[in-house]
C-alpha cells in the first residue's frame, strides 16, 4: 500500500511547480541578489552566504542519491561519505596539481609530499593533471567502487542491518586509510590550499558564483534524473523491494540487480557532490568521510522526509543551515541537537519536514484523516 507519493498525478503536478519555483529562486534570484543590490542593502546576499549555500546544494545532490537508495529502496547505506570522499579527492587532486609552483614550497609536487619526502609524483596522481579526467574520475571512481562493493553485498543477499553495518565498517576503514600518510593523499590534513580551476582564481567571487550556478544546475539535473528513475518501471520495482523483497522475488524479478543499479546511481551522485564541494569549500580531509559524517548524511534525508525527492533536498539544506548557524553560537550544543534530532525525527516525524507540511495541509484544507504513510518494513 505504500505507493510513492510522487506517483500520484495531483502531487506530481505540485512537485513540478515547486521544482520550477525553487529553480527560479536558486538559479536566478539568489545570484542576482548577490550581484545587483549594493552591499549595505538588506537585500544583498553576501559572497559568503552564496558560497555557503552552494556547499549545501552540493550536499543536496548526495542526499538525492541517498534518498533513492534508502527512502525508496529501503537499503540503509552508512557509507555514502566514502563515495563523497572519492569524488572529492579526485577533484582535490586535480586542484592540487593545478597550483603548480604557487605552493608554499614552490615545488611541482603538492606541499604535503614535500613534507613527507616523496620525490616523485605517484603514478596514480598523474592522470589528474587533466581536468576532464578529474571530472570523469570523480564520478567513475565511486561508481566502480560501488559496483564491486554492491555486487558482493547484494549478490550474497546482505541486507537490512547487516548491510548498514558493513557499509559503516567501510566508512571506518576508508577513514583509517585516508588518514595514512603513505597513501599519498595528504594524510590527516587532507588536500587544501587550492588556487585556481581552469585558470580562474578560486578566491574570486565571480568564480565562486559560477561554481554556485553550476551546482544548482547539477542539482536540477540530478533531481530530474532521480525523478525519471523513480517514475520508471525500475523505480516501481525499487519501491516494491522496499515493501516486500520476498514478493518481488516471487514475481520473477531479481532484486539484486535493481539494488545494485540504485546503489551505483547513489554513489555517482555522491561523487558528483564531492566534486562540486571541493572547489567551493577549498579543503577535503578524511574527517569528511568517516563514520560520523556518513551517518549525518542519513539524517539530512530523514529530516527532510525520505521517500520524497524534495524532502532530501530540503533536509540537506535545512540541517546544514541549522548546523552552520548553531555551531557558530553554541558549538557545545550541536551534538545534543543532532542526536536529539535523530531520535525525534525517527520517533515522531518519520516523514520528516515534508510529512509535517503534508499533515498540516491535510488538516487545514480538507479536515480529513491525516495521511499515514506506512512505515518502512525491513
Amino acid at each position, binding site marked *: 500500500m505504500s505507493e510513492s507519493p510522487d506517483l500520484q498525478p495531483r502531487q506530481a503536478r505540485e512537485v513540478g511547480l515547486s521544482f520550477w519555483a525553487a529553480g527560479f529562486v536558486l538559479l536566478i534570484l539568489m545570484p542576482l541578489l548577490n550581484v545587483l543590490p549594493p552591499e549595505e542593502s538588506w537585500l544583498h546576499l553576501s559572497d559568503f552566504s552564496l558560497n555557503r549555500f552552494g556547499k549545501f546544494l552540493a550536499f543536496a545532490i548526495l542526499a538525492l542519491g541517498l534518498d533513492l537508495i534508502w527512502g525508496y529502496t529501503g537499503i540503509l547505506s552508512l557509507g555514502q561519505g566514502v563515495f563523497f570522499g572519492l569524488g572529492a579527492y579526485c577533484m582535490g587532486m586535480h586542484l592540487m596539481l593545478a597550483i603548480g609552483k604557487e605552493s608554499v614550497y614552490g615545488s611541482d609536487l603538492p606541499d604535503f609530499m614535500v613534507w613527507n619526502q616523496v620525490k616523485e609524483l605517484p603514478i596514480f596522481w598523474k592522470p589528474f593533471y587533466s581536468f576532464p579526467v578529474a571530472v570523469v574520475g570523480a564520478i567513475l571512481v565511486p561508481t566502480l567502487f560501488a559496483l564491486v562493493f554492491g555486487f558482493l553485498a547484494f549478490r550474497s543477499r546482505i541486507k537490512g*542491518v*547487516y548491510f548498514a553495518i*558493513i557499509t559503516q*565498517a567501510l566508512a571506518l576503514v576508508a577513514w583509517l586509510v585516508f588518514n595514512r600518510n603513505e597513501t599519498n593523499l595528504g594524510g590527516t590534513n587532507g588536500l587544501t590550499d587550492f588556487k585556481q580551476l581552469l585558470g580562474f582564481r578560486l578566491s574570486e567571487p565571480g568564480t565562486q558564483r559560477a561554481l554556485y550556478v553550476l551546482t544548482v544546475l547539477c542539482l536540477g539535473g540530478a533531481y530530474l534524473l532521480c525523478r525519471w528513475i523513480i517514475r520508471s518501471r525500475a523505480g516501481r520495482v525499487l519501491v516494491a523491494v522496499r515493501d516486500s523483497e520476498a514478493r518481488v522475488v516471487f514475481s520473477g524479478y531479481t532484486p539484486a540487480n535493481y539494488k545494485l543499479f540504485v546503489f551505483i546511481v547513489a554513489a555517482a551522485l555522491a561523487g558528483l557532490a564531492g566534486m562540486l564541494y571541493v572547489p567551493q569549500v577549498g579543503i577535503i580531509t578524511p574527517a569528511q568521510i568517516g563514520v560520523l559524517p556518513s551517518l549525518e548524511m542519513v539524517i539530512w534525508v530523514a529530516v527532510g522526509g525520505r521517500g520524497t525527492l524534495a524532502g532530501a533536498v530540503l533536509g540537506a539544506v535545512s540541517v546544514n543551515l541549522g548546523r552552520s548557524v548553531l555551531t557558530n553560537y553554541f558549538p557545545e550544543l550541536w551534538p*545534543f541537537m543532532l542526536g536529539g534530532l535523530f*531520535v525525534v525525527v*525517527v520517533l515522531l516525524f518519520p516523514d520528516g519536514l515534508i510529512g509535517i507540511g503534508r499533515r498540516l495541509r491535510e488538516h487545514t484544507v480538507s479536515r480529513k484523516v491525516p495521511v499515514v504513510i506506512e512505515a518502512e518494513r*525491513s
Partner: protein
Amino acid sequence: MRQAAMVWAVILCLAQAGTSALAADSSAQPVIMPLEQALTQITSEDDTVRDTALAAVIQQGDATLLPRLDEIRAGAERPIRLAIKPVMDLIRNRSNLDDPASHVRRSAATDLGTSGRVVAIPWLEAAAAKEDKKWVRYTMQEAAALLKLSLNDQASKLEAIDTLGALSSQNGVPALQEMMTAGRASNSTDAQKELAKRSSAAIERIETWGAWSNAIETIFRGISLSSILLIMSVGLAIVFGLMGVINMAHGELMMVGAYATFLTQELFKSLLPPAMFDYYFAFALPVAFVLAALSGLILEATVIRFLYGRPLETMLATWGVSLVLMQAARVYFGDLTAVVAPGWLSGGQQVMVGVFFPNNRLFIIALSIICVLGIYGLLFRSNLGLRVRAVTQNRNMSACLGIPTRKVDAYTFAFGSGLAGIAGWALTLIGNVEPGLGQNYIVDSFMVVVTGGVGKLAGTIVAALGIGGLNKVLEPSLGAVYGKVCILVLVILFLQWRPSGLFAIKGRHADS
C-alpha cells in the same frame, strides 16, 4: 637480619674463593683494607689509592653504608662523584639480591647483568643457588652468564655461551653476535674461532625460541582482544537475536560502565581510608552493571519500544542517543579521566622465557569466560532464559502461550546493557576513560555480531575469536590499518559464503 649477615658471610667467602676467576677486574684484587680507612680514602686525588679504596668498599660494604657514601659523594668533586655512583649502585643491587620482594631481586639481577662488573658474578651465583622463584633464578643465571662473557678465560666464556643458549636469553644476543664477528675477522685466533662457533649455535637456539615465544605472545594478544570483543558483542548479540535491534548506543553504555568505575574510584578515594582503595575495583563491578542496565531500561522504555519491527530506524535513533550521551559525558567529565588499576592487577606473569602475560589481560580473559558461562546459565538454565529463547524463536507463538514478550524484551535489553557496563568496567584496565571509549571498538563488535549470526551465543564466541585473533595475527605484518581493511574484506567474502552469519537460524525464520 642475622640471616642476612650469614648470607653476607657466605658471599664474602665465595668472593674470596673466586678471586682467581676475578683476576680480570682491577677492582677485584684481593684487598685487605679496613672499611673505615677505605671510606676516607675514596676521596683521594690519587687514582690508584682511590680505586683500591673503592674496591675495598665494594668487597665489604653493604646497604647500611649507602647513606654515608651519599654524604661523601655530596661533598666531593665531580670525577669522584662519578666514580662513587656506580659503586653505590653495585652495593645497592647486591643487597637488593636479598630483598623479600621478588621483583626487586629480579631487577637487581638485571642491573648487575648489564653493569659489566665481573665482581658481581659470585654474588649472582650465590643468590641463584638459594633462589626459589623460578624466573628470578633465571634472571640471576642469565646475568651471571652475561658477566662471565667478559672474563678473560676461555673455559668460562664457553660455559657462559652455552648457558645463554640454554637459557634462550634474548639479552645475550648482542654480546654473542660480537663474538661471532670477532671470530670471523681475518686475524682471529683459534680461541676466538671456537667462541664464534659456539656463539652461532647459541644464537640459533635463541632465535628459534624467539620465534616460538613471539607466536605464543601473538596468540595470547589475539585471545585477549577476542575476549574484549566478546564481552562487548555478547550483549549486543543477545539483543539483536531477540529483538532484531542493533543498538548503536551500546558503546555509550560501555562508557556508562567505565564512568561508573571512575566514580566509584573517586568515592573510595574521598570517603574511605587508603587501605580500602584496592577494593574499589571489585565494588565497581555491580555499580557498572546496574547503572548500565538502568540506562538500558530507560533507553528501551523511551525509544526502542516504539520502533519495534523497524531495525533500521532503531539503529538511527539509538545512534542519536549515543551522540547525546557522548557529548553529555564530554561536557560533564571533560576529555580525559584515568582509572588507576588496583594493585593486584598490575604487573604480569612470566610463563616461559620471553613470554610475559600482563595480569590485566589475563583478568579480562577470565572475565569473558565467566561472562559467557553466566550468560549460558541464564539462557539455558533459568526461567527468564527459557522465555528469551522462546521469544527469539517465535515471538507470536510465545505471546499466545502467555509469555509477556514486551517484558522479556525489556529485561533482556537491560541485561544486554548491563553486560556493556561490565565491558566498560573491564576496558578501564587497558585504556583511559573518555567519552569516545565505546567508539574505538564498536564497529569491530558490530562485525562480530554480523559474522556470528543472529543471536547465537556460539556464533558470537567463534566470530569474536576469529576477528580478534585475525586482527592480532595480521597486525605485525600489515599494520593496524591495513589489518582492519583486510578483515573487512574477509568479512565481506565470508558473507558471500554465509550471508546471515556463521550460525544462522535455519528454516522459515531465516529470511524474515
